[in-house]
């Protein structure tokens, strides 16, 4: 059973066909990289997989279950977690509260208007654990507003990992990071165990190519090339896509 | 039959006046993305200023049209000041700007009470437009017909402004995509001031034009603002055609509603607005969703 199967996924906005019949098959534990020039439809594909966008046609299946019609808010409960290209964290709160919200989202306690959140100590404990894993445990109580961009990227990853996802979607996790920060994030990602399947969108080739096992190249919403690193790099169509016709 | 004819003409007249009021509101909403809650106050200020100029200030009394022009310019200037001194200090913060216009409407209402007192002021129909015209079985007040003509003239004028002039092109660009407009070099803040002043002037002109029909009284702002709101929501924000069509529709609903279903008049007026907001938020001709 594959972790993520996408068949014939299509989406148009007005007259513009952004995603054209995309097929994707990601095996459990795999490290898949999605690349393509700007406007290739990579983030749209992610949005279709997470359900934030409804496809015009096609299906999305998670570990054998057809989730095409499942509301996006339920997909986190089915084991799907994602990070965003533009950091969308809770800027008014502390780092640990950000992770607490990620944990709370999966718990029935989120409907409880009666007891004090602090009494639910396990959210805070598990939050600190998740932050330890990304090396931010020592500043867990710092307000998010006082953190660096690189630290915020790691908070995002901590939030995603705290959800114990089966499928992790990373949208340009290395964007805007310094060389040191990139190294930290890379170490982090390499340390994620194999019971988490990872699909990553990235522009930054050197870091991403090291990480990826299989690569899918998208252009104008279509899959152009797919294969392992060597195959994709050698394929003439890859050159065409990036260097023009 | 007579009754329906008179009611219909009154509806079109009212619609014409609403158009003058709402066109500005629609442009402001379309360009600056805020419902200008001071708009009713600007209408009322125009009416009060106009009425005062007619009666005479500092020993100088004017004829209706001169007074209307002066009132329009005065309120347009006020609009420019409001935008430049207050709204511009809250760039991008639509909610804060709405709240400021709300606060200003409180101040304007009391200001008018302070200056002009609580009694309604009658505005004489301008010379030459008194009397009636017979059309078939019914007689229509000339002034009401004149308003229809004025509204059409302004509609055409505004359309020419938006469609044929550089300013109009900039306004349309700003309504469609303010960020893109900035990128191509349109000085959006100055455009905001111009449009706000234009909208204020139009509202004031509508106020004084409506004077002979509605008279001028405290609470006029509260009566007119919701109507402008309904017109713009129905017609679509940022759309001149939408304001025109919306005004006529609301003119009819308002007048027929008052005549036929007085108990539910307000309900009948606001229900379409609510339905549009809920099911088709961009209105009939709108360019974007509020």
């Amino acid at each position, binding site marked *: 059973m594959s972790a993520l199967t996408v068949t014939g996924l299509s989406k148009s906005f007005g007259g513009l066909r952004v995603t054209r019949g995309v097929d994707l098959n990601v095996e459990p534990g795999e490290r898949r990289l999605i690349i393509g020039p700007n406007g290739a439809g990579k983030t749209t594909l992610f949005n279709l997989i997470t359900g934030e966008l409804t496809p015009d046609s096609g299906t999305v299946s998670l570990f054998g279950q057809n989730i095409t019609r499942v509301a996006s808010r339920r997909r986190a409960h089915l084991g799907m977690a994602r990070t965003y290209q533009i950091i969308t964290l809770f800027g008014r709160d502390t780092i640990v509260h950000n992770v607490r919200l990620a944990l709370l*989202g999966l718990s029935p306690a989120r409907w409880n208007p009666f007891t004090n*959140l602090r009494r639910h100590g396990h959210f805070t404990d598990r939050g600190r654990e998740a932050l330890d894993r990304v090396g931010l445990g020592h500043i867990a109580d710092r307000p998010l507003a006082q953190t660096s961009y690189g630290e915020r990227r790691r908070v995002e990853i901590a939030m995603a990992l705290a959800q114990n996802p089966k499928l992790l979607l990373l949208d340009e996790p290395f964007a805007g990071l310094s060389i040191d920060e990139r190294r930290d994030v890379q170490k982090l990602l390499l340390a994620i165990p194999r019971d988490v399947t990872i699909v990553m969108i990235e522009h930054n080739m050197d870091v991403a190519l090291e990480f990826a096992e299989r690569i899918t190249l998208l252009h104008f919403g279509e899959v152009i090339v797919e294969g392992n690193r060597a195959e994709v790099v050698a394929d003439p169509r890859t050159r065409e896509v990036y260097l023009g016709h | 039959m007579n009754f329906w004819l008179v009611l219909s003409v009154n509806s079109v007249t009212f619609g014409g006046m609403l158009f003058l009021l709402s066109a500005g509101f629609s442009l402001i909403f379309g360009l600056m993305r805020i419902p200008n809650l001071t708009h009713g106050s600007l209408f009322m200020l125009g009416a009060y200023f106009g009425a005062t100029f007619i009666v005479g200030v500092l020993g100088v009394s004017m004829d209706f049209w001169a007074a209307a022009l002066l009132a329009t310019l005065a309120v347009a200037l006020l609009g420019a000041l409001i935008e430049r001194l207050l709204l511009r200090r809250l760039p991008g913060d639509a909610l804060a700007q709405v709240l400021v216009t709300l606060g200003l409407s409180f101040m304007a209402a009391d200001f008018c009470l302070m200056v002009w007192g609580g009694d309604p002021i009658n505005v004489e129909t301008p010379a030459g437009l008194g009397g009636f015209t017979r059309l078939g079985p019914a007689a229509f007040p000339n002034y009401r017909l004149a308003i229809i003509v004025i509204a059409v003239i302004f509609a055409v004028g505004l359309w020419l402004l938006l469609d044929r002039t550089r300013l109009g092109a900039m306004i349309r660009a700003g309504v469609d995509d303010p960020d893109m407009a900035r990128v191509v070099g349109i000085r959006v803040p100055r455009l905001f001031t111009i449009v706000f002043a234009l909208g204020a002037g139009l509202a004031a002109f509508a106020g004084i034009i409506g004077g002979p029909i509605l008279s001028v009284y405290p609470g006029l702002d509260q009566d007119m603002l919701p109507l402008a709101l309904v017109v713009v929501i129905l017609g679509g924000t940022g759309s001149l055609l939408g304001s025109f069509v919306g005004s006529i529709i609301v003119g009819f609903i308002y007048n027929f509603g008052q005549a036929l279903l007085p108990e539910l008049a307000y309900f009948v007026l606001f229900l379409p607005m609510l339905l549009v907001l809920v099911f088709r938020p961009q209105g009939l001709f709108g360019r974007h969703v509020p």
Partner: protein
Amino acid sequence: MNGRNIALGVAAIALVAVPYWMPGVYYVNVSSQILFYAIFALGLNILVGYGGLVSLGHAGLFGITAYAAAYVLQSGYNHTEAIFAALAVGAVSTAVFAALALRATGIGFIMITLALGQIIWGLAYRWISVTHGDNGINVKTRPAPFGLDLGSAVTFYYATLVVFAICVVAVMIFVRSPFGAALMGARDQPRRMNALGYHVWAIRFWACMFSGLLTSIAAILFVYYTQFISPQTLALTSSAEVLLMVISGGAGTLLGPIVGAALVVTVKSVVSGFLERWNFLLGAIFVTIVILMPEGLVPGSARLWRLACAKLRAPVKPAVTEAKP
């Protein structure tokens, strides 16, 4: 025992002792008004401050509950029945309100709530057979729970104070609860919350219902206080006034709406004795706060206080010494 807790303790004692230090029954009555308007403002703040949804139609919900109570009483039922009926009408109205308004957010939400408020006002004004239009409906007596005569200003004040205290505690619990955290998360990053597994619409809907409950409670206290309800209570200006209470005091804080209510009610009742055009003052205060202290009086004053304390504690700067040539 920090400064804030001492201040709150003093305030609590002052509230309990109001009839003793206020110079006259008129001011006890003003205090009652402040308290139930504070409940109204706390209710609106659930949406505006914690939910990020600005409503310009809350006077409609307030009014419809007050009218329900007055109408039921006038039809001959007793106070318990009237209160239950009012709460029920309030709940149903809030549910409809929320279902319609939550189709949008931001400016769209403001417009829909404004339209709803106007519709309810229009019904109150024109549906004369039910509401008596401008003449309003009178409420002849106040209830007498446990034999206490609420007709007396002091007794009414204490009854209101008890209800107020309960409401404040309820809001405090709500805000610190997991649901409260979810609501605030949905205010700040709704898209992210959706991806994290939260049902953003449902969170907002239930926040509306809680807001409506507080609004209904305030309305019931109001209608028993004034013993009269008329369409003026539901006008746009009334919705604007309660919004002003929330914004001026500080949206998204516990104390803000209470301070805001005190400010607005004081200007209306007390200042209006000296200054006939108090609406002008109210509007001017509003505009000033939105531009200069947008976070509201409570957080703004706290910030200025901290700044002042920091300046007082700053070490004296050493004199600049010139480098030797």
